């Protein structure tokens, strides 16, 4: 479905763009239907840049990103709009994604204005409610409320519901649970797990290795824009080949084992 082939991204820095920074170098990966691919890396590893390029918010400097064989970078106008009906993103901070001045359900109204003007109001309302039920939210609890009246977990699930209204096939989830409390985090992850069963592909961008393993099928470890190790999640976590992956795994705080204790 989604394929990245030898993708590079350079940013120009400094006055007059005299310096160049390579944020992503030669990254290739694929996301199929119903597949969750975790993109794990530390800050500055280029993971968010990759997410932005997949969403068409930035163009790769070199290489190709294709969705169903069609290059993403060249999409304009109506074709881009059709692409965004199938591919959507949800980002890290739910509180800054929403405009605090407007009610939170405005995100749904914006989708209607942008894509479904012909749908009558009553039918649209049914679709919103169905999408909210799909993300385990009670419509009465969240509709007609301002963002500050809702919890982070609720807002984040509303954004996923918004994406689901568009009959999407690929979701770019950029650190979507980092800002949530432990007790609501797992609900959002379980939701992604269930959506995956219905055929949704997910590009799950995170810095947290524990969260990355929970639902993913494939894992890609990034360092400074380069793929260090990629493969099936099980294999990477049980038998990491690269030293960097091993160091990263050793630094993760576990609940029942201290850092200095040997692996049980």
């Amino acid at each position, binding site marked *: 479905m989604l394929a990245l082939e030898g993708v590079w991204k350079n940013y120009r820095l400094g006055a007059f763009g005299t310096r160049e920074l390579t944020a992503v170098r030669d990254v290739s990966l694929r996301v199929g239907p119903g597949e969750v691919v975790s993109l794990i890396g*530390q*800050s500055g590893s280029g993971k968010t840049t990759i997410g932005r390029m997949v969403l068409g918010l930035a163009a790769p400097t070199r290489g190709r990103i294709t969705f169903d064989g069609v290059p993403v970078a060249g999409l304009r106008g109506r074709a881009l709009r059709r692409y965004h009906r199938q591919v959507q993103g949800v980002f890290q901070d739910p509180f800054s994604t929403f405009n605090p001045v407007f009610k939170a359900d405005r995100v749904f109204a914006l989708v209607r204005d942008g894509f479904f003007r012909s749908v009558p109001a009553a039918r649209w309302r049914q679709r919103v409610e169905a999408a909210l039920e799909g993300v385990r939210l009670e419509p009465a609890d969240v509709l007609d409320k301002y963002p500050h009246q809702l*919890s*982070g977990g609720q807002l984040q699930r509303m954004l996923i519901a918004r994406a689901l209204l568009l009959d999407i096939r690929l979701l770019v989830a950029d650190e979507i649970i980092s800002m949530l*409390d*432990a*007790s*609501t*985090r*797992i*609900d959002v*992850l*379980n939701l992604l*797990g269930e959506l995956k069963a219905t055929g949704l592909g997910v590009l799950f961008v995170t*810095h*947290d*290795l*524990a*969260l990355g*393993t*929970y*639902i993913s099928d494939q894992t890609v470890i990034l360092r400074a824009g380069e793929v260090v190790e990629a493969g099936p999640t099980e294999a990477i*976590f*049980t038998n990491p080949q690269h030293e960097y992956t091993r*160091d*990263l*795994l050793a*630094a*993760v*705080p*576990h*609940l*029942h084992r*201290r*850092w200095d204790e040997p692996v049980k």
Partner: protein
Amino acid sequence: MALHVDDLRVHYRTLRGDVRALDGVSFAVADGEIMGVVGESGCGKSTLGKSLVRLDNRMKQVGGSVTLDGEPLPIGDDRAMNRFRFKSVSVIPQYAMSALNPTRKIGRLVADLLAAHGISYSATRPELLRRLALVDLPETVLDNYPIELSGGMKQRVVLVLSTLCDPALLVADEVTSALDVSTQQAVARTLVEFRDRGYVRSMLVVTHDISLVYQIADTIMVMYAGRLAEKAPSDVVVTEPLHPYTQLLIGALPEVGARFSDRKLTGIPGRPPGLRNPPPGCRFRARCPLAFDKCAEQPPFVEVAKDHRVACWKAGS
């Protein structure tokens, strides 16, 4: 005993009434103890940390007392606290990376800070350099502006600065939350090393990350909606928690290797009560699977085993 907190109540004043962020919190921290304070956002853990150092103008101490080494700590009196701040109680704030003045070189900042507390910079400089070296920072950072340092380096600079006067108590508020796993590990280990070397006598590590605090803390205290839920040695909290909230919280953490397809973890349904008008009785009642009639009464925070205190009617009975 280094720190004694007795029935501390701190409220936030808002236009719509007081928010009871800390509602009767009592505990003690021993000399050389690292205590982790964990809980969800809005449970009062940061308020607890802040109130031991400085109450900002929205916060007011409504009741209770704090004693440090037998001397009462006048936390309600901003002026009187000046004598204690930095020298005997110190803090690493939540956003330590923005705690540094961006227009001053680090060295100049330290000199200003020491001058404000009447300490000579030139006399302290050798010790400062020793400690910087200990956290792997070269002498040249003193000539850098904060923007020239990475997040982890800034965090370590702030760590060295806050502990320069060997405080009896250090409050570390979410110090590792914004860092990458490997930097996180380095900073957490430095906290332990500073304790071992006696730069800091006792420490309160405030965080939402139980797995991280388990790595470094001797005791873990779990807070829920402005009250203490459970306090025990860290191994006990993680392996045999007694409060249903602690049990559910630990059950909701995905470990590396846990898989959705193998075993589905569950979150805690519902959300914490608002603290403006908290419900009477146990505050976890509405979300608790074990709740029964008696929970309408507030459970006392009692010792059920040695060093293990729980506020739940079902625990220990």
